[in-house]
């Protein structure tokens, strides 16, 4: 089963989402802040990244930009997650290099649909 890198600073979000994904058979690797997200993302070994946008210090948009830009140039799908859910957030996330965008509270079926679609997309 595919491996997902979950970049999330909130402990409860991490615990809950990683357990729910693991129940569906995914392997979940955790990064607890932006710098760890960039480090683990650039190290590779994942099939998709779930990226929280409101991380302290280095926020999700910046993490996505760094992962996409040279020298890292990561190509695996990134899904942005945010609890802001304000107009314009989606566009901002796509501009930063994310492939899709979802809001919290997470509707699991919807998020799983997005994950599966992106994983099937030829890279």
């Amino acid at each position, binding site marked *: 089963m595919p491996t997902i890198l979950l970049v999330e600073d909130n402990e409860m979000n991490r615990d809950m989402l990683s357990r*729910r994904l693991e129940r569906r058979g995914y392997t979940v690797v955790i990064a607890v802040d932006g710098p760890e997200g960039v480090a683990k993302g650039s190290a590779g070994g994942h099939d998709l990244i779930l990226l929280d946008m409101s991380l302290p210090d280095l926020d999700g948009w910046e993490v996505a930009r760094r992962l996409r830009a040279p020298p890292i140039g990561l190509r695996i799908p990134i899904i942005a997650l945010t609890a802001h859910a304000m107009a314009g957030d989606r566009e901002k996330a796509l501009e930063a290099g994310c492939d899709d965008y979802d809001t919290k509270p997470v509707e699991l079926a919807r998020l799983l649909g997005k994950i599966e679609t992106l994983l099937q997309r030829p890279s």
Partner: protein
Amino acid sequence: MNPPDADLITTAALGELRHELRTPVNHIVGYAEMLLEDVPATEPDRRARLEEALGAARDVLRLINGALTPVEGRAIPAAAVTELYQRLRDPQQRIVRSVTAMMSTPGTILDTQFAQDLERILVAAHRLVPEGKAPAPVAIAGSSGGGVAGQALILVVDDDENNREVLRRRLVRENHAVEVAENGRRALEMIAARSFDLVLLDMLMPDTDGYEVLVQIKEDPATRDIPVIMISALDDMQNIVRCIAHGAEDFLPKPFDPVLLRARISASLEKKRLRDLEKEYLRQVDRVIAAASAVEAGTYEGGALGEVAQRGDALGRLARVFDGMAARVKAREDRLKTQVEDLQREIGVAREASREMAVPVELGGQLVAGQRFAERYEIVRLVGRGGMGAVYRARDRELDEDVAIKTVRRELVSDPEILERFKGEIRLARRISDRNVVRTHDFGESEGVYYLTMEFVEGITVRELIDTRGKVGITSTLAIASQLAHSLVIAHGVGVIHRDIKPQNLLLDGDGVLKVMDFGVARLMEGGANRTEAGLLLGTPAYMPPEQFLGENVDARSDLYAAGVVLYECLTGRLPIEAGSMMQLIARRLQEEPPAPMAVNPEVPAAVSALVMRLMARKPEDRVQSAAELVAELQALG
């Protein structure tokens, strides 16, 4: 004119606010959905409560989206946020109620992960509307259903009609409910009849003046917590000081300044609100303390902490943890009670059977019935014989109680070195005082007979129980196991290894209490002279761990091995390894693994079977490592 900026929410702040509110909703929905996946359809109550929490969380989301979405770029007034927090209270309380109901259902034991996840939902629910965001409405006494936030019931006491009216009108404009009294006596009557949130009290009044009214309010425990603001002219500083010394909250100088009036009233009301919260908190602390006493007295009912457990603070958490612990303790006690009752039943049946089979014990020991022995004991009868000597029931004439006297064959103690070692062991064993251990009293010699005295227990041995019943029931075996494990914790704790745990050494009294015999005695049997004697060791090697019959180091884990064999025999009615001779037994034990108890008796639960096999592991390091660990394992089995 546009309203000032301070009353509008900026877009950035709005984003923050949505984030702040949607994050806990995300937790509640996520954990509740995950728990729903775990709760089977056979538990409709739990499913319904989780569904209720989920429904309430979705209501929260609708309220947030409705209130915090800007329309056509127009900013949102700050008042909308206050109103939103007020409206979130209801669904928040629904979440808290359904979760705490699951946590404190009497007789329900929650899986640790499940309980942790419920705790997380509760934390998230309290984050939704933190304390202070939506203050509870100040209750208005006598009114039917509380009031609007900030509203209070205020009594104005003044003999001057103009003053009363000015104050009343101002306060009504501030949304307060106002009553007036024209003198001190009337004021005291009204205070006795209704519960006011605040009293504004004129200092100078004919007959009963303000000071006297204040003193009476503050002397009465029922009214002393009502804040009182004195009304006086500024030049009456001496009286103001006197009133404040007697508990007045504040004072208002005449003529009234509206801003000062509003500030002092709201400060007093806020202080009262905090005091009420504190009193409520202390009341709930008292309930937790009372619950602790109830647990001690054995009268605690699960879920009795009710609304204390619904609090979002540390006290609520304490109450929930406490409730959970009390439920677990009660469940464990109930289980033990059932085990002991089953054991009592089996003992009763076995005693009946053994009475029928009873063969009189042959006489022929060194002592005879009726004989006076060692100047203080009167021999009642011979009750058994073993490799070491004979066992008699005797009457201790000095203490006027029955004891067991075990005689020790002379040749066992003929070597002074062995005798000393044995005495040392008995000295240690005498230090064990526990209801699951037969108490050793004394070791002595009289008329050339070496003997031990010990507590006399009226009962049957586990040997007799197995022999008459064929095998012992699962719950009864667990009752034997937990008591045996407990006795080993105590003995090993004082450094005594039994070395000869076997069904013959385990006595059961009529109440199902297990008592282990012969702590310290087995040491004597290890003397070289007796190893070869027929009959002496034959009964025992079946329970011996390999290290013991190989002459290697024996430690606490050797007793655990023997306990494993005893439990195996209880559960299956047979020994794990059956052999015709001691050599064959030793050879087979070193070469083969016995069949698991569940393979012999399919009624044995897998976990019990596995635990017994682990006790009987060939290598000590593969066994349960201590008696305390065995106690814990047995508790986990339930």
